[in-house]
Every structure is written in C-alpha cells, then in structure tokens.
C-alpha cells in the first residue's frame, strides 16, 4: 500500500515498449559484463604482437587492437568499469543531491541561503582541479574516481531538487499534511520527495552518460583508468587514433556506449512518465 507509487509505476512502465527495450538491453549488458566473465576468455591484457589490428574473426570476435589484445574481452571489461562508474557515481550524486536539495529547500531562510552558497562555491571550482588535487593527495584509486565524479555531479541535482521543493513547500497539500499533524520528516519523505521524482529521474539519465564521458576524459589525462585496464572511454579514444587502419577498434566500443546511453534515455523517459500518476491508467 505504501509503495503503491512504485507498483503502479512498474505497471505503467510495462506498457512502454521503448522503455522495456532499454531496460532489457541494460539488464542483458549487466548480466554479460558481470555474470559471465568466462566469455572474455582471452583476457583483456593478453597481448599477441603477431596479430595486431586483426579484423573480427571467429577467434577474435571484435578483432584486436594495436598490441594484439582481444577487443571483445576489452569491451566487456571496459563496460564493467564504465557502467559501474556511470551508474554508481550517478546514484551517489542523486542521493546526495536529493537529500541536500530537499533539506535546503524545506528548511529555507538562512540555512537554505548558506547551503546554496556552498554549492555555488563548489560549482566555481574547476572540476579537473578538484580531481587532480584529490588524486595527488590520495593517490590513484578507483574509489576516488567515484568520489570525484560524484562530488561534481550532485551540485546540479541539489539545485534542481531545491527549486522543486521551494515551489512545492507552499502548496496546499503540504499545508494540509501539516494540519494533519505529520512530522516534518514524514512530510519531506512522503510528500515532497515523491513530487520531485520526475525531474530527478530525467536528470539522472542525463548524468550517467556525462559521468561515463568524464571518466573517459580523466583517463585520457592519465588520471582515471590505467592501462592495461580499459574503459569504453579509453577504448574509443584509442579507436579514434587508428580509425583508418582498424575501424572496428572504434566501432565496437562506440556502438556499446551509444546503445547503453540510448537505453538509459528510453528507460529514464519511460520512468518519468510512469511515475506521473496523471499518466494513462490501464
């Protein structure tokens, strides 16, 4: 009963073909990447210098790269990293952003003001600068990558949620909830946050690709994933360099990245519609 919003949303989501397609593609991907590492039987770092830039073949399904490494294995291992970074960092940023933003908007007044000025200051810091400082201080670290990416992404989320909460705070149903004697905590959790979910989910689906791309950028600068590990970002970058010689080194990682982003967008769009109770019912 209490999570009827979600059960109903799921029901509506099932009607949305594109969203379902996106969801199934993502689930399939996650399953392949995490449950069946056996598939990447050749290993992402095994080199075969006699077989560099081999075209796709029954042995190397996606061909090989400049060091003769199996591209299929690299795409799968890269996908693990890219998706983990993308999803985790986005979820962390959403969580922090929603909590921070809704508190700021709900408490209002001076607290809101100082909370938002902190966001402004963090916004003003160049992101790369922040990451470099973190990396230099704590050394290169996979976890740190999440932290750094999450730290920069929650800011916009916090602003969006705060704006929503501010406009909702004086709605009559919040007043009514107050007059019913609900605790402030319940009002925020039960009445305010569900009403901000639409924009939050849309923004979340926009965050995932931008985090994946930022990770690629950091890796390019040597601050992210280090060889021989690879992410889709680094694979695409390598692929671009040898595009004329071995187009498949660009095609496969780029295809997976785009397909994933498409699926996320479809799913996000579908979720937003599904979470709106005003959407068609049955």
């Amino acid at each position, binding site marked *: 009963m*209490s999570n009827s919003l979600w059960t109903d949303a799921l029901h509506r989501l099932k009607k949305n073909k594109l969203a379902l397609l996106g969801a199934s593609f993502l689930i399939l991907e996650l399953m392949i990447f995490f449950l069946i590492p056996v598939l990447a039987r050749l290993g992402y770092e095994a080199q075969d210098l006699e077989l560099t830039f081999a075209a796709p073949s029954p042995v190397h399904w996606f061909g090989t790269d400049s060091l003769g490494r199996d591209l299929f294995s690299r795409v799968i291992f890269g996908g693990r990293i890219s998706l983990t970074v993308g999803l985790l960092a986005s979820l962390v940023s959403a969580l922090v952003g929603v909590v921070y933003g809704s508190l700021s908007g709900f408490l209002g007044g001076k607290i809101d003001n100082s909370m938002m000025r902190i966001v402004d200051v963090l916004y003003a810091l160049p992101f790369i600068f922040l990451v470099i400082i973190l990396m230099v201080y704590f050394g290169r670290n996979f976890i740190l990558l999440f932290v750094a990416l999450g730290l920069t992404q929650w800011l916009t989320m916090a602003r969006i949620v705060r704006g929503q909460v501010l406009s909702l705070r004086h709605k009559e149903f919040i007043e009514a909830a107050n*007059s*019913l*004697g609900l605790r402030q905590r319940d009002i925020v959790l039960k009445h305010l946050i569900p009403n901000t979910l639409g924009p939050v989910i849309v923004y979340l689906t926009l965050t995932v690709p931008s985090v994946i791309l930022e990770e690629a950028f950091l890796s390019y600068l040597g601050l992210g994933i280090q060889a021989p590990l690879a992410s889709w970002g680094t694979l695409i970058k390598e692929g671009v360099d040898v595009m004329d010689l071995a187009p498949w080194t660009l095609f496969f990682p780029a295809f997976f990245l785009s397909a994933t982003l498409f699926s996320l967008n479809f799913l996000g769009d579908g979720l937003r519609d599904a979470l709106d109770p*005003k959407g068609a019912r049955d």
Partner: protein
Amino acid sequence: MNPLLSIQDYKAHFYTRRGIVKAVNGITYDVHPGQTLAIVGESGSGKSVSQLSYLGLLPSPPLKITGGQVLFEGNDLLKMGEDQLRKIRGDKISMIFQEPMTSLNPYLKIGSQMIEPLVIHRKKSKKEAWKLATQALERVGLSRPDQAMESYPHEFSGGMRQRVMIAMALTTEPKLLIADEPTTALDVTVQAQILELLKSIQKENEMAMILITHDLGVVAGAADEVVVMYAGRVFETGSVDDIFYRSQHPYTRALLRSTPRLDQLEKELPVIPGSPPDLIAVTEGCPFYDRCSYQKEICKAEFPRESSSGANHKRFCHVEKIS
C-alpha cells in the same frame, strides 16, 4: 456549559520588513461543543490567520503571537511546544481547506493519504486504518469507497475531493473542525451538498465547527453563532438571528446591505465606500473609522469596549444606537 475553545484577547502579528502587520489584534470569543461558529469578514480581515496561527501552521518568523490565550479543553495552546501541538492537530482539531483541488498530494493514492491521521495519531495498523478510512469515505457519500481509496486525486472532481478532505479530517473524530472557506471553490449545488454533509456529521459526532467564510449565505444556512471580523478585530458576536436581524454595528449592517438579495434585484447594490485599512498602519482607534457613516471623534482615538445588547450578543462600537 464549558466552552471547548476559548480565545481571549488573542493577538498575532507579522513582523515584516515594511513594519508590523497586525493581522489579529485582540480577539475574544468562545466555541461550544456541538455548535458551529462562523467567522465572517472581508479578505484580509484576519479570519484565517486567527485560526491557523494558534495551531502553529504559519511560518514563524514572520508570525509572532504577541498576547492572549487560546484555551482548548482548558489547556493553553499558545504555551504548547511544536510536538504537543502536532499531536492535537489532525487528531482533536482537524482542518479543511479552501482548495480541494490542491489539498491532496497528486503523487499519492487517496487511500495512502486518508490513513495518515489514523496511523499517526491513533497508532492504527495500516490495514485497520485502511478499513476505517474506507468507511469514512462511505459516510461522506462517495459511491464506491473501495475504488476511491485506490484512486489518485486527479481522477476526482472538486466536490468529490472536498468530500475526501472532509472524510480525512473526520477519521479521528475530532472535537473541533476548522473549515477554512470549505465551499468557496465549489459550484453552488455542490456547496449546498457539502454544507449539508458537514451539518449532519456534526450532529452525529457532537463536534464543534469553526466555519471561516465571506459568504453570508453560507453563514445563514449553517451557523449557530457568528463572529464578524474586520482588520484583525472582532466587531460583533452573537447568534445568527442577532447578527442578521438585530445587528447593532455599522459594519455588520453595511455588510448585510451589500449582499445581493433575490427579492430586491431591481435595486442597485449598495457598497461600503473606501477599502479596508492597511494593517501596518492601524491605530489604536476603530479600524472602520474612515468608512463608517456614524463616525464620532472618540472612534479615532480608541477602540470601543465590549457592550452587550442581548444574552450572547456583544458588539464593539462607540455609537449607542444605530438606525
């Protein structure tokens, strides 16, 4: 009979950058169990603020309660902390608001909202609360309460939503129901139904009701006692008949005269000249002074004391006799 709610010389002011807005400026009246008290007044006369403020429903600051007592069952609500007040709100004192269209959370099913007061105040299990809430919906005349519990607010019309709000306010069987213009946003036929419903429920539960309205028609039809408010002051209190037929206050008279009547349609409707005073600039005098056709020198200097012209009929005016 002991009053259920006794408001004594209650003052609530807003401290704004422009100055102090004296929204409620020393009001006194009682509400008795089982009775309906209507508070009438123009927009901005302090009707709503006079109720919302002592329940802790207005942001403070800017609101500051500067004096008086509000005794509910003998306890001063103004001395209670936020936690104590919260336990009374929605339990012994319930509210219905003006805007049924926006008073329900669009993201939650009617049912999940209906059970909230029962779960919070009566510590009912969700299942039990659900059953009780369904019965409450049936009592307010919704035809398929089971289905209604599973619906979302947007699937209902304004009148139905107001019924839901009423049902929700009544689930805890409150001692006092504060209805803030409950029918203003509804069309006339639905208005009549809602008022009828409120009256019948009141009779069943021996519940007191405070009806805030600017519609004298509603007052005539639903109230036992009337309080006439103007610019944060009470001008006159009395029974419905006292106010409608034996009013001894220039403002009440003017208000009644400016109400359209079906039997006098050909006449031009008289209006009260001028407009209500700026509540920041109110003086110690009578706030109606500028617009009053009986004005005297003393009215400007001090607000009149209470004078009674009947058992329960009290008025605040310097003018002895008005024609």
